[in-house]
Structures are given as structure tokens and as C-alpha cells.
């Protein structure tokens, strides 16, 4: 078995298990209040962490790059226009523009 095949098979099994545990354990139940309260706040916590790491992290160091400028421009676009399409189009355009400089 090649390294690639081992990696693919293991990733498949582990990812499937990670995604199945919660739904199997918690499905079809009434939500206790504390659970709802935490889940409501899971979106801002995870989204903020995804944005921060994708915009500022390159491997294990933090830095500002063309994509950081693009994401900032996208944020400005959604704040001013409310359009998520305008947000992502502007983000890509600004990132490509800064890289082309």
C-alpha cells in the first residue's frame, strides 16, 4: 500500500468518525438550554478563529499578506453593501491586485 493510499484511507475513517459522533449521540433530542446557549455562540467563536487564522497565519507564523488586505476589503464591502457576493468578489480582486503589484 502506498503512503498516499494509507493517508487517504486513514483520513477517510477518522473524518467520518469525527463527523458522525455528535449527530449519533445527540440526534433527535430536545436541546437543553445550556446546549442551545453554547451552540448559538459557537458560530462567532469558530468563524472568527477561521477568519483570523486564514487571513493572518502562514504556517506557524503570523503576518499580513495580500490575502489579509483582500479579506479586510471584503469586510468593508459587506459592512457597506450587505452583499456577501460583493464581499468575496472584492476580496479576490484586492488580493490579486496586491499580488500583481
Amino acid at each position, binding site marked *: 500500500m502506498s*503512503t*498516499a*493510499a494509507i*493517508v*487517504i484511507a*486513514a*483520513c*477517510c475513517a*477518522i*473524518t*467520518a468518525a*469525527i*463527523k*458522525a*459522533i*455528535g*449527530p*449519533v*449521540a*445527540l*440526534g*433527535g*433530542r*430536545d*436541546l437543553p438550554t*445550556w*446546549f*442551545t*446557549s*453554547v*451552540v*448559538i*455562540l*459557537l*458560530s*462567532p*467563536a*469558530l*468563524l*472568527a*478563529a*477561521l*477568519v483570523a*487564522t486564514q*487571513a*493572518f*497565519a502562514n504556517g506557524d507564523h*503570523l503576518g499580513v499578506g495580500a490575502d489579509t488586505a*483582500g*479579506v479586510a476589503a*471584503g469586510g468593508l464591502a*459587506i459592512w457597506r453593501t450587505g452583499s*456577501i457576493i460583493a*464581499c*468575496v468578489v472584492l476580496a*479576490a480582486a*484586492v*488580493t490579486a*491586485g496586491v*499580488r500583481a503589484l
Partner: protein
Amino acid sequence: MGAPFAVAGGILALSFGILAREGGFSSLEAIAFSAIVFAGSAQFAAVSIVAAGGGAGAAIAAATLMNSRFLPMSASVGPSFRGGPLKRAAKGQTVIDASWALSSRGDGSFDEHMLIGASAIAYCTWVGGTLVGAIWGDRLGDPTSLGLDAIFPAFFFGLLLNELRSRRARGVAALGTAIALALVPIAPPGVPVLVASLASLVGLTKRARSEVLESEEAEGEPR
């Protein structure tokens, strides 16, 4: 709503296909990776490690850490899934960042049709993009020159701004950001985002719980 990101995902998949081929994966292996694992950041992490000469163990560990955020994400969706345990486990496989965020109703519940629909479109473009990148990648230019790698963080940023209506949500977002950025230099990739999810435990405070209780009572029927 999910379509533009599925397109962006397809283009990122294209660069994954190219990277996987350069990292020593065959075209078939690259396509199979996308088709059966379907987890962008984990796939990029695993392939980069294999390409750099790291072993299978290191690649699997990195991919697992990358995907560890799906543990809280899919657990949060769990109560919104209908059907028996097998069906719910299958539905859980459709949890990916973008469709998870899109399907959130903001009251702790999720729209399972939105989740599955958005993921289905993203799946097609992800596998299709990988196929094109793996087979014809050497004839294409560098996808990052188009700035497409900024699309996902910008999309998440857009969704995040919609989540920041309450002061508590803004505080949690700031805390999540601080935790993630503080961990980037010292923790393996994937861990910062997982640990940042702990910021949501602010929801356990008495005040946060009583607000949920009040809004549930205002809806008439406690869920």
C-alpha cells in the same frame, strides 16, 4: 447562496489537484482523496506533509487536527437532524465550514436541507476541480494569482459580521480570535481553531442561559 462558494471551492480544489500531483500522489489518488475525504484544509495539510517527505503518520495526524473542528460543528447540528442513528451519521458527513455556517438559524438550530444542499453542490465542484487540477494542472497557471484563496476567509468574515448582533457574540468572537492567533505560533495547524471554539462556553453563564430561556418562552413552546 452556497453556489459562489462552491465555485470558489472548485478553483481551490484545482490547486489541490496540482499540489497533490507535485507531492507524489497519482491523479487517481488525488481525485479519490477529494471524493472520499472531502475536507479541504485537511487534504492540503496532509499532502503538504507527504510532499515535504514527512511520513504517513505525520500527515494523518495533521489532517485529523485540521478536521477536529468538525467535532463541535457536527455536534451542534446533531439535534437538528431527523432519522435514526445511521441516517444521522450519514447526514453528519455533509458538515463542512461553509454550509454549516449557512444553515445556522441563529437560535441554536440548523436547516438540514440547506446544509445538505449546499454541501452537495460544493462536493461536485470540489471533486471536479481536483480532477481538472490533477489531470491538466500542468497546463494551468497559478490559481493564487487570482486571489481566490481570499474568498473563504472573506466569506466567513461576511457570515461572522451577521453573527455579531449581541454584545456577548462580539465578545466571544474577540476571544475566539485572540485564542486562535495566540496558538498559531505554538500549536500544530488545526488546533488553534479547535481550541478557539471553547470561547463559546461563555454561553454557560447564568445570564446567557436565562436569555435563551426567555427567547424560547417568547416563542411560545420551549424546544
